[in-house]
């Protein structure tokens, strides 16, 4: 069907990866209950992972028929620098969230990415980041009481103190 479009860089590697992953999951699905019964907990998982493996192999066959030559390169069309940076930034966010806390981590995350991508002034980046964090904090933390990790900012105590002040004023 689409055999005249050339293979994209890395496509073959990704294809082999999904076949390997499917096979691994199929093996694991077999391990849930074996061929115990039609109604076993492993029955449907075995069918789905089996189907994944089968499709993976068919896709591989289609891929191998495609011409391998392409003008695209990995560094430009598949994993350009901004994508790598962003994936790294999200990972860093997840790692830092517990020790540093929600407010500082989010602020740094936004500031870094906005500054990097937009190349605008620091003033613009800082105010955009701070404003967005404030908005998200109000919606999630104050309105919906989603307790984000506090980290180095003792926000729980600060909120309680503010609450006390207002409480006292009443």
């Amino acid at each position: 069907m689409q055999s005249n479009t050339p293979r994209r860089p890395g496509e073959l590697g990704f294809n082999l990866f999904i076949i390997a992953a499917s096979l691994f999951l199929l093996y694991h699905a077999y391990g849930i209950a074996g061929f115990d019964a039609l109604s076993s907990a492993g029955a449907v998982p075995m069918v789905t992972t089996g189907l994944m493996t089968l499709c993976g192999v068919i896709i591989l066959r289609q891929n191998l028929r495609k011409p391998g030559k392409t003008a695209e390169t990995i560094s430009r069309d598949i994993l350009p620098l901004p994508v790598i940076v962003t994936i790294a930034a999200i990972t860093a966010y997840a790692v830092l969230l517990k020790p540093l806390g929600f407010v500082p981590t989010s602020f740094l995350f936004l500031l870094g990415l906005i500054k990097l991508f937009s190349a605008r002034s620091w003033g613009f980046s800082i105010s955009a980041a701070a404003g967005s964090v404030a908005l998200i904090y109000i919606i999630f933390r104050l309105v919906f009481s989603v307790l984000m990790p506090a980290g180095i900012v003792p926000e729980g105590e600060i909120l309680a103190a503010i609450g006390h002040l207002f409480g006292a004023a009443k």
Partner: protein
Amino acid sequence: MIEILQNVLIPFLDLKLLSLVALGTFSGIYIGAIPGLSVTMAVSILISFTFSWDVYPAISLMIGIYMGGVYGGSRTAILLNIPGAPSAIATALDGFPMAQRGEAGEAIGITTVMSFFGGLIGITVLALAAPSVSAFAIKFQPRDYMLLAVLGILLVGSLSGDSLVKGIFAGAMGLMIGSIGLDPLTMDQRFTFGSTAMMGGISFIAVMIGMFGVSEALIQLHSMKTPGVKQVINRIVPSFGTIRKYLPLSLQSSAIGVIIGALPGTGGDIAALMAYDHARRVTKDPEVPFGQGAREGLVAPETANNAAVGGAFIPMMTLGIPGDSVTAIMIGALFIHGLHPGPMLMVEQPHMFWFIVGCLMLANIFMLIFGLTGIKLFVKVVEMPRTVLIPLILLLSIVGAYAVNNSLTDVYWMLGFGVLGYFMRLYGFSLGPVILGVILSRLLDDNWRRAIISDQESLPRLLHGIVTSPLSLTLFLAVIVIFLSKTPLWSMLMRKKTS
């Protein structure tokens, strides 16, 4: 009759209740629009919050949020390609391409009016036919749910884009993801690799936010220098002609929505996807092809998911059985307020039923009003420079994934599925089938097992059961016809006929 009308009109005439419904609907739209904030979550917070209130105000607020929330999911789906809620997944398929062409205003307009229409049909069926619909819905046996799930799985054909094989792979992957965790039926561990954190499975919302939100943001990083899409807004409210044109489709979609909504165990998300598939099947030649901004692709899912709201109340009000997760919490709320939702509620306290119908109607009207105002401000989002918008979407995705279960693990899952989704899109896989698979996984798996166990592990007995029950037989035939219609054989036959 007068008494019924009196109860229906309570929320309309009492200023306090009226403003609570308005407030609820308004906040519901935003809750629905933000991925990670769900109506289920908001309503359960409200239980503690409204604990000391009377039952009427508490219910009015909850219903407002419910109605607004189901609709609100479409906003981010259209503007950012990130469905705010699972029931808006189908909306993104054609809504986002419209926004990319500068037609976000029109897309939101159609969505709003159609949501209102679907909501209206759902409420009407609830008011007029609740007992008979629930008598029908309760009759669904495990094998019928299984067939319904198979019918849903066949949607892979419509969702897989260029390559069917890749679509099937993605669908199977979704089904597999949905089965991760401690199996609730047997307590067997499936794909948990011995980890406690995996026993609860992978949060569906984390998968959805990753696959849609993060992968979309990563893809857009390729074209960061392109400015935001300028939006032309000349017509928001669709013309009468447009509405009339889509009337048959929206009626059919509403019917799908009400039934699927009324079935205990299926809700607006499945209804919307099924309606989308239905639209693709019955629309002979859309002005714009499906997946590239077909209006039919907005009309069907949006009428269906709002019709499902009325549908979900049907088993709740008549039998005390929740039609979906939100009505499950409302049943809890009614208990807390001293009512006893069950088969006797309609007999002992019919006023409650009619009051809820009234609230739903009012919320539906507010949804229309709030939905059609402020669109100009909303679409500004798409016009924002991408260099700011993308980091913001990413942060919102992270916070949303975290908020679902207050868990960092979900953030890692979101990232993992985001990266996986990114590669899948680059290599020509469409992600719709993955989400479809996750949504339908439990419905298919659990009911397959129940069905085959009920028939003593014998396939011939199961088949016999299917052909002897009119309901199962109808579903079975629908599965076969739709399956055949998606195979090359069928199109060959059709071509022969026409030539």
